[in-house]
């Protein structure tokens, strides 16, 4: 690779360099021999991608094939997955793999065959670009784009993820990468870039939804030097991993966005603040920064122009609050990660009290794509107030768990029932939680609302960074509020009183309600406390911390009342409020429950219906799950 690179770089004409990289990248993407890409993002690895990789290595060790690792294509539920490229044919994605299946399939791939077993689909135009018409379609296997999970998606940020080798800069350029940077550096004045981003309507994807271009403009205008550019990759919401997948699957897209942003505001130094719990993302970023520098897309005199920009990586130390901009900047400075008041905006006085632009991973990744497709085309996507797409991690009680990128304005119903494939085991949908721990739970009656920044706020939730947790009828909403509050109590930095003490007290109240010790006036007390925390907290963490309680109170108040007044948990989740017992008529005295009870709480002889000794029962539910005669019930 080194010899290739230096011969390319000897020419100073970057337009030509890009063309040559693109040509080479096409060869990397569609080589003239068998190529197998193992989807090895963190989600893939967790499902066994490494084992798949080593099995492939063993099986194909004497063959002339290319084996490589790529990011995640989104359908995490069905990982491990591989993409199989046979020369001349459209690539096919195989899912739900095991080493045994690999041993069976790999020899067939070598022969140029595409068995239907475990085939998910073949890649279509959204990945193949101009190769769409050249490569032959594989009969008997659906197009990826026609599958329910992918059909309503529109991939802008994730378009390369799971397809290109994340550290192969040739492949990134082959997909149009760095052309936007070239155009910006050669054809745009910084103000024109800002103008385009303002017109595009791009809003911050970290959750706040502040217009990105306006932020850049304020920073460009602010006096003071140096100016800094920061990428916030401290993704910490439970159940959310959009940024991780982007960092692992397409790091150059983020770097390109940051260089464009730096040029627009006049900065020479950037930082990526990424949580240390994402080791693969950190490693990928380090390598990507090095490679981009070697090719002249980062560092001194980028693309031969009189503009230099470097990026450093800062690893977060495990505090959720460091995803808040001012706490994040304090952390980079080496101080305690505590937020400060923001009456002076960070675009005027941010990192080291210098003008600073901070944007989230997804926001940066959108930037080069906006330049590429043009403001007008980008504007066509989304709703009036929220343009473009949003990446969500769709998780919980939904058939297709995974990462989805959808145009703004899609309805929650489409997301959960079309893309997500509905609720498993034909259970009923109960609520969907958006916006991370400080977001809110949205009930069935609002499923037809369009998803965008403003609509979600109207119903008491928020966009957040894009976590979307689906809950079925077996979920207790009071318990859900308790869980999210416990997370926030742990993660409050403890600086201001309402968040530190108030969230803890709110947690204590909800906790006692789930234990059946709720008091008549608890709901009123919670409302009073929640209002104070919301109004009087210092940073956004505290200001939104009562949301889990406020939205569940708004839409599921009857569940709170059932817990408090009747001492009952309607969903049968809160242990202190449920009882297990055996219906005598149904019990065949088979002894299964007695045998499996871990605490010896079941008594009964042969041929005598069994009984649960309530004093001993820990309500683990094992008896219910092992009874074959539906004799054990929960109430």
């Amino acid at each position: 690779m080194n010899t290739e690179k230096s011969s390319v770089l000897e020419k100073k004409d970057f337009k030509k360099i890009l063309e040559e990289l693109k040509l080479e990248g096409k060869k990397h993407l569609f080589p003239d021999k068998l190529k197998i890409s193992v989807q090895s993002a963190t989600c893939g690895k967790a499902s066994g991608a490494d084992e798949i990789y080593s099995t492939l290595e063993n099986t194909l060790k004497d063959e002339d094939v290319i084996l490589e690792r790529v990011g995640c294509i989104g359908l995490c539920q069905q990982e491990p997955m591989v993409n199989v490229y046979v020369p001349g044919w459209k690539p096919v994605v195989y899912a739900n793999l095991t080493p045994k299946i690999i041993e069976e399939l790999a020899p067939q791939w070598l022969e140029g065959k595409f068995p239907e077993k475990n085939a998910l689909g073949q890649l279509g135009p959204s990945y193949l670009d101009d190769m769409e018409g050249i490569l032959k379609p594989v009969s008997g296997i659906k197009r990826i784009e026609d599958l329910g999970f992918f059909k309503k998606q529109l991939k802008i940020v994730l378009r390369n993820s799971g397809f290109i080798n994340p550290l192969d800069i040739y492949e990134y350029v082959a997909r149009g990468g760095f052309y936007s940077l070239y155009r910006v550096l050669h054809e745009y004045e910084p103000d024109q870039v800002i103008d385009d981003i303002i017109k595009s309507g791009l809003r911050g994807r970290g959750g706040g939804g502040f217009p990105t271009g306006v932020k850049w403009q304020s920073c460009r205008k602010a006096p003071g030097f140096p100016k800094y550019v920061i990428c916030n990759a401290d993704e910490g919401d439970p159940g959310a991993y959009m940024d991780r997948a982007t960092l692992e699957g397409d790091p150059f897209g983020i770097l390109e966005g940051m260089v464009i942003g730096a040029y627009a505001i006049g900065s020479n130094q950037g930082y990526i603040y990424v949580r240390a719990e994402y080791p693969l993302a950190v490693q990928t970023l380090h390598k990507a920064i090095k490679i981009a520098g070697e090719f002249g897309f980062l560092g001194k005199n980028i693309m031969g122009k009189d503009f230099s920009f470097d990026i450093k990586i800062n690893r977060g130390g495990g505090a959720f609050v460091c995803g808040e901009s001012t706490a994040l900047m304090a952390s980079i400075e080496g101080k305690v990660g505590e937020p400060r008041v923001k009456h002076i905006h960070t675009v005027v006085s941010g990192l080291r009290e210098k003008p600073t632009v901070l944007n989230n991973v997804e926001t940066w990744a959108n930037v080069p794509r906006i330049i590429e497709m043009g403001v007008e085309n980008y504007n066509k996507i989304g709703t009036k107030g929220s343009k473009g797409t949003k990446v969500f991690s769709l998780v919980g009680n939904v058939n297709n768990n995974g990462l989805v990128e959808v145009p703004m304005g899609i309805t929650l119903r489409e997301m959960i029932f079309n893309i997500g494939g509905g609720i498993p085991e034909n259970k009923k949908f109960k609520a969907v939680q958006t916006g991370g721990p400080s977001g809110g739970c949205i009930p069935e009656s609002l499923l037809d609302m369009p998803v965008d920044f403003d609509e979600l706020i109207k119903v008491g939730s928020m966009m957040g960074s894009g976590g979307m947790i689906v809950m079925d009828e077996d979920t207790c909403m009071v318990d859900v509020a308790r869980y999210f509050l416990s997370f926030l109590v742990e993660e409050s930095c403890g600086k201001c009183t309402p968040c530190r003490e108030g969230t803890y007290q709110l947690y204590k109240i909800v906790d006692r309600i789930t234990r059946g010790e709720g008091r008549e006036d608890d709901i009123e007390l919670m409302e009073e406390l929640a209002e104070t925390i919301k109004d009087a907290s210092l940073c956004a963490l505290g200001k939104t911390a009562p949301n889990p309680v406020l939205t569940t109170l708004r839409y599921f108040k009857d569940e709170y009342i059932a817990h408090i007044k009747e001492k009952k948990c309607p969903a049968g989740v809160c242990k202190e409020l449920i009882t297990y017992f055996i219906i005598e008529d149904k019990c065949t005295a088979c002894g299964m429950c007695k045998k499996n009870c871990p605490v010896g709480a079941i008594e009964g002889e042969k041929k005598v219906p069994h009984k649960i000794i309530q004093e001993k029962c820990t309500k683990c539910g094992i008896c219910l799950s092992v009874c074959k005669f539906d004799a054990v019930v929960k109430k």
Partner: protein
Amino acid sequence: MVTIEIDGIKTRVEEGTTVLQAARQIGIEIPTLCYHEALTRYASCRICIVELSIEKRGRMRTWIDASCVYPCQEGLIVKTNSEKVKKERKVILELLLSRAPESKILNELAEKYGARKDRFESVDKGKSNCILCSLCVRTCHELIHADVIGTAYRGIRKKVLSPYNIAQDVCIGCTACAFVCPTGAIKVKLGKDRLDIESWPASLEIVKCKKCGKPVGPKVYIEHLRKEVPLSDEVFELCYECRRKMYTTTTWK
């Protein structure tokens, strides 16, 4: 200069003056706990919250914010004691009281705002007495330049401690931390030979008066002063009373 309105009174102040300063200039009192004129503003206790309104693009926006940090701007309308402010200040007081139930200043404010002590139970049941206002930490850092203490842990477990909770030799035993503490959470014990701060490990050797044997002060503190203040050695070796005696006899006779 900008014109703002506080509790119905129009006043002109320098732009950037905080709402708290502006209110105090016209004699309107807003309670504070973590605020101190000599220190950087921290805005953590939130007891000084006020209701702010301003017209922006034809729409009136109203919200609650901390007056100790909020900068005055043209057309700002401030209500320091609206129903909402009173209600939320009461809740904040109750939260703080769960931490420091015995604090004099908190109990006085509680009476004024009708705050109760029976609604919330604190995580340490009021044992620490500390409301984490950070006045001690800021004083030690900004005024004494000793940096002995900081906050450790986070959230409800946050504490003021010396690094690693071990005694630090940079402590000069000035006890300014205890002096600024609004709730009396920092206890200083002056023993026969040593001065101890009980909230974190700090135990300092005491210098005794050359003449009468009474304590003069912590040894490191006296040495620190000796370097800073050009006075005769004797001054640093005598207790307060003997020093007075020495001056009256030597200077005025």
